[in-house]
């Protein structure tokens, strides 16, 4: 059974493993179920995720959108880059691969190999430029350039255009910068969670129960780490921030990661005027933190950066439990079921038991109440 891990990201750049769905197959139906269950864990509809990052898995991609209609779905650009590279190696050849038994000049073979390598490097660097282009205009020019490089390989171009670039809004920087992504543009965080889990598991052929044993151990350590990071962020402030008057109000209330982003942006704001065009406002749109143009304006008017300028995610330095009234009893319904059972004919009783009660009670050792001969 594959494990479909869902990981969240805290304000202190720690990972929080939300759930561990073990699925029978990687099918759309199973993914939908797991996502719905996960959605049920969220406390309110105002708390829905703004962004979900996945890899380019067809089944998963199709399913996330219907379950979370208001969420922006992003794809891991690193994995896509890997796919493009792999495809490039097979498709972009200067000369087609000679058949196995044909006699080939070794020198020529070496030359071809070097040429192939050059082409690969060119294509990959053009691709990188394409993905990292910060605005739609620069994307257009980068895409033109990419096509120019790949001109001799029409098969490769058609592959890229039909299967990858039709999803460009989901991974090219020009579009992902416009949405709140808190710096998660890859699935790195979940890959590292897989790695951490496998370190605990040690063997890849244990059964589910031993998997749980290790997962539980891992979670205890993980919560300790997260709590520790909260404590550090609340009490320790780096010296370089203490000197800056503008940021005085943020100390101890905002995570250090956010402070670092603001500090970098502050440095950048000194390099240009107050023009909005130069700024790009990426920090504002994708991190929810004041960007260079806002900081420049504030420092001109000698205003401090206030807590309201910062997206709530960065201000949360503790675990906020929700208050729920969980003190309700199901006595009425229970009695109803009992009465219903009493009236039921024998066969109906058996059916109810085998299909409903066994699922709830069977695992808790209540199975003995019905004579064993009746259980099939």
């Amino acid at each position, binding site marked *: 059974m594959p*494990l479909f891990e869902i990981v969240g990201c805290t304000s202190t750049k720690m990972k929080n493993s*939300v759930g561990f769905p073990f699925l029978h197959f990687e099918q759309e139906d199973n993914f939908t179920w*797991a996502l719905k269950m996960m959605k049920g864990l969220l406390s309110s509809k105002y708390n829905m*995720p703004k962004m*979900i990052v996945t890899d380019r898995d067809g089944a998963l991609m199709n399913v996330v959108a219907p379950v979370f209609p208001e969420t922006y779905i992003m794809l891991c650009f690193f994995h896509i880059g890997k796919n493009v590279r792999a495809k490039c190696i097979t498709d972009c050849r200067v000369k087609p691969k000679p058949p196995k038994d044909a006699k080939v000049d070794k020198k020529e073979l070496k030359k071809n190999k070097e040429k192939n390598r050059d082409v690969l490097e060119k294509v990959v660097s053009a691709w990188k430029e394409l993905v990292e282009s910060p605005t739609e205009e620069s994307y257009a020019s980068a895409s033109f350039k990419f096509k120019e490089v790949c001109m001799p390989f029409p098969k490769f171009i058609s592959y890229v255009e039909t299967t990858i670039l039709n999803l460009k809004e989901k991974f090219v920087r020009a579009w992902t910068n416009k949405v709140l992504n*808190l710096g998660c543009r890859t699935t790195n965080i979940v890959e590292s969670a897989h790695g951490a889990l496998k370190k605990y598991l040690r063997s890849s052929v244990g059964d589910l129960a031993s998997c749980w044993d290790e997962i539980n151990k891992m979670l205890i350590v993980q*919560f300790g780490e997260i709590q520790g990071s909260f404590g550090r962020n609340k009490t320790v402030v780096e010296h370089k921030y203490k000197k800056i008057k503008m940021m005085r109000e943020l100390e101890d209330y905002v995570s250090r990661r956010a402070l670092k982003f603001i500090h970098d942006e502050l440095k950048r704001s000194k390099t240009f005027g107050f023009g909005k065009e130069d700024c790009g406002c990426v920090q504002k749109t994708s991190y929810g933190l004041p960007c260079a143009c806002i900081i420049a304006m504030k420092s001109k008017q000698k205003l401090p950066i206030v807590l309201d300028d910062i997206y709530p995610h960065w201000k949360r330095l503790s675990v906020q439990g929700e208050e729920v009234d969980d003190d309700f009893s199901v006595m009425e319904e229970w009695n109803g079921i009992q009465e219903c059972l009493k009236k039921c004919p024998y066969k109906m009783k058996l059916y109810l038991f085998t299909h409903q009660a066994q699922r709830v009670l069977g*695992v808790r050792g209540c199975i003995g109440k019905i004579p064993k001969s009746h259980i099939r």
Partner: protein
Amino acid sequence: MLCRMHDHNLEEKLSGHFLAGRLSAEEKKKVIYMIKSLTVPQDILTNLKQNNKESVTAIKQVYNVRTRWRKGQRGDMTELQYLISKLVEHQYVYYTRCNSEETTIENIFFAHPESIKLLNTFSTVLVMDSTYKTNNH
């Protein structure tokens, strides 16, 4: 006993003899303690040998203790019964889903209460991906 046909000289060292290499009750406790904290059998053996210079325990005995301990833990519960009893004990939230004939559980989802709280605190960005080679199903 001598039979003059299959005799060989007495061994000076006792390693390899199960009786000589058996673990004392205290050592067993220690081994189980180390198994719980994911120590590999080799390291456990090294530890035993360091503490007791005359020990002739073999790696096999450590493995035996481990298997016996693991079996004893579960009692006569099956894998899923044990899993679910543990999930209930530790107050996990868990959901299961059966196949259409309701004979076998196909999907299982569980989450720790603490991670649910964390999820509700930091719900802006979620990252998901699936991995293989975690279990034998």
